[in-house]
């Protein structure tokens, strides 16, 4: 047991994670590209035209996966935050801050594609639907995390403060979602039901799942790539950085 713990903590040290991340990210990037190609092929050439929404519905092949990823990444950030607070590992804070911009990007894309889908379908760029509203708030939470960690100069302090924000946020996301949903049902008149066609074709589901997997692989790859930059920025003055092969030229 203790042996296994020691191994985990070995990988949790930036010095050994830096080369590991360097070896791993190209694989995830390649996998992501292949999945994206398959996903796009399904979304445009396999999935049939929707009899109600015409071709416009094809936006959901990125809209839904982007929303899923934005929520999932926040949970992963909270997971790293909890690890960081419990075990006081340096790497977990770096992982959280490497994930945050990507999560914010997916939240933004979800809002953007949601608006572009909503305009032809409901005739409005924006409706105060529970999902859209909570996605917007999730985007604000990401921005808050990024702004706070950027405003604190000492990286260790920034990590700890960010960890608290991430954990407080993850407790609040479901509360916010249900409160907005409730608020929405109370104001029935103003809202448009966003429920999709009752029977979702299997090809549509597959397309969304594969696109979600592609986004997932992309997120892992970009987070590993970014964490390498973060590790170098923070460990600038250590001997292991000075001894890296790419620093010898």
């Amino acid at each position, binding site marked *: 047991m203790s042996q296994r713990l020691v191994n985990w903590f070995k990988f949790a040290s930036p010095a050994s994670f830096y080369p590991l991340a360097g070896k791993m990210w190209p694989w995830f990037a390649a996998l992501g590209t292949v999945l994206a190609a398959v996903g*796009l092929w399904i979304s*445009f*050439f396999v999935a*049939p*035209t929707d009899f109600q929404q*015409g*071709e*416009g519905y*094809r*936006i959901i092949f*990125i*809209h839904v996966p*982007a929303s899923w990823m934005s929520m999932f990444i926040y949970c992963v950030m909270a997971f790293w935050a909890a690890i960081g607070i419990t075990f006081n590992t340096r790497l977990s804070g770096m992982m959280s801050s490497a994930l945050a*911009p*990507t999560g914010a*990007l997916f939240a*933004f*894309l979800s809002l*953007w*594609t949601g608006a*572009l*889908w909503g*305009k*032809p379908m409901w005739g409005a760029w924006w409706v105060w639907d529970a999902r859209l509203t909570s996605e917007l708030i999730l985007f604000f939470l990401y921005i808050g995390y990024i702004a706070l960690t950027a405003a604190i100069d000492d990286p260790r302090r920034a990590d700890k403060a960010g960890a608290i924000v991430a954990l407080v946020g993850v407790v609040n996301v479901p509360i916010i979602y249900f409160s907005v949903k409730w608020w929405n049902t109370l104001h029935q008149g103003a809202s448009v039901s966003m429920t999709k066609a009752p029977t979702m074709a299997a090809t549509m589901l597959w397309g969304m799942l594969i696109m979600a997997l592609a986004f997932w692989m*992309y997120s892992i790859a*970009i987070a590993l*790539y*970014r964490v*390498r*930059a973060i590790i*170098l*920025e923070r460990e*600038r003055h250590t001997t292991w*950085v*000075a001894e890296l092969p*790419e*620093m010898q*030229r």
Partner: protein
Amino acid sequence: MNWGSASEFFAMGGYGLYVWGSFGVTAAALLIEVGLVRHRLAAVRRGLRRELAADRDTQD
């Protein structure tokens, strides 16, 4: 196959602006993100190499 011709494909049954606006912005955003991170990593490495080279010079 859903599409008879390339122009039909780009028109997206009249929803071209919305569909390509979504897929295009997503693709652009992801590419920009990759570019920014590449730039960040390269900048850190460049700065570090300079620092280390300066250290070596002073030691010699």
